């Protein structure tokens, strides 16, 4: 459903992602594993259109070619992005933060958002910047969800979040998938989290995909070796 092929990304002269191919099936959760500096964030930024990809690349969602479109058009076609470090709008209220993703005119936020994230309802009039890290992560996911995505991209959602909240996050992501019938692509370093939610795992090293496995056949030792420094 979501197909990426021959995707290369470079900063100036130095190429960081070297011709990556992968595809995501309907309703699938795909985890992209890799250590720091292996190109996960670069990959995600080029998928959403913050970084340009090199000519010859293709990013297809259903039958729409997205690779040459600006970010906001990719979002309109059904891609949504939760960046590393959350990047919520710090001086906007929680409600306004969520509304930035809404495309309807009236600005009412769907009730299911607050059913998923009750804490956001309690905090709805606070400024986004005054929320804790875990709450900000929920806010960033809520903001992405109201765009009604077909594919949700999450870049290291567990970074800087305490273990008990990480478990919550895994539960919420699975619930979202069931509720919205969407595919999720998540980049991750925490193996337990990835094994908890993902159907399939890819391993990225030095800008290439070096391994791919279904969760059932995941070899903990091998994966651990990829992730250890």
């Amino acid at each position, binding site marked *: 459903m979501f197909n990426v092929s021959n995707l290369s990304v470079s900063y100036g002269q130095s190429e960081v992602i070297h011709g990556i191919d992968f595809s995501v099936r309907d309703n699938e959760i795909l985890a992209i594993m890799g250590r720091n500096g292996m190109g996960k964030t670069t990959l995600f930024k080029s998928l959403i259109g*913050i970084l340009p990809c090199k000519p010859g690349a293709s990013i297809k969602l259903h039958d729409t070619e997205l690779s040459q479109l*600006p970010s906001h058009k990719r979002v309109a076609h059904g891609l949504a*992005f939760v960046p590393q470090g959350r*990047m919520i709008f710090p001086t*906007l209220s929680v409600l306004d933060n969520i509304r930035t993703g809404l495309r309807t005119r009236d600005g009412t936020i769907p009730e299911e958002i607050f059913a998923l994230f009750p804490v956001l309802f309690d905090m709805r009039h606070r400024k986004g*910047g*005054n929320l804790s890290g875990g709450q900000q992560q929920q806010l960033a996911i809520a903001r992405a969800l109201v*765009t009604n995505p077909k594919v949700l991209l999450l870049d290291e959602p567990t970074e800087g979040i305490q273990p008990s909240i990480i478990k919550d996050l895994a539960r919420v992501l699975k619930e979202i998938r069931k509720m919205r019938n969407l595919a999720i692509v998540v980049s991750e370093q925490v193996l337990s989290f990835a094994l908890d939610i993902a159907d399939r795992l890819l391993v990225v090293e030095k800008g290439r995909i070096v391994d791919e496995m279904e969760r059932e056949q995941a070899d903990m030792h091998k994966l651990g070796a990829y992730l250890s420094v």
Partner: protein
Amino acid sequence: MEGISISEFGSILMMQGFNGLSVFSVLLLMALGLAIIFGQMGVINMAHGEFLTIGAYTTFVFSYLTQTYFPSLMSTYFLFAIVGAFIFAGLVGLLVEWLLIRHLYKRPLDSLLATWGLSLIMQQIFRSTFGAKEVSATLPDWLMGSWQPTDTIDIPLNGLFVMGLTIVLTCLVGLFMYRSRLGLKMRATTQNRVMAGAVGINTAMVDRMTFVLGCGIAGVAGAAFTTIGSTGPTSGSLYIVDAFLTVVFGGAQSLLGTLASAFTIAQTNSTLEFFMTGSMAKVITLLSIIAILMMRPEGLFSIKVRK
């Protein structure tokens, strides 16, 4: 100060204070547009004063046409002129953004120089079109004269009108920024342009609308300006420094700050002007602003959140 009784002194203070309020009004209208453009987009628009001049000349042209062709409408033309000034200045803003500004978003110094050049070009265009001599719009009768609450206090009606206009426009801008969808998109784009794009906001469009709105407000400031002064090719550029000062002093991105700082600057300046020369008043105002900015570099009102 000998020979002035307490009550007369009070009246002087009142009237100077009111004078300050008129200056405050034009300054605020000018700074509002600038605060939106500078605060939201980070573009230092040196040609902002010329958009005020466009508004002022638009009003003049409206007044001239009305007087020549529809003299019976003289009493109401001014209201149409305000709308016309907004639209015309906004349209020129649209053209300037499309031709010039959008290519320079990531280069603040270049955009400063380019808009400065633009301001010179625009001034020359005004000079070639309307002549170097200052012109004045003919004001409708209801803007003439003054209101005398006591024997010694004399408050001009045009000043009152400008103030009213400023209050209405400030409220409208506030409502627009904090209640409308486009306002929300503007605030989101200001805070994080890249992320705003990644949640589906067309940031190029938002930038354009922001610039147009800011220029339109400057146009209205120009229309208001014609009621308290005559219009020349460089009328607007006289205000640009004060307007920038207002924006920086108030804290970019804060409408309330812009309001408070326009008030402080205009009042200090005009009250001091009565007791000393104009330039000394300016020096003292500037020195106090510099001192305050050294203590509060982010301006009077800055929103604090966890970074």
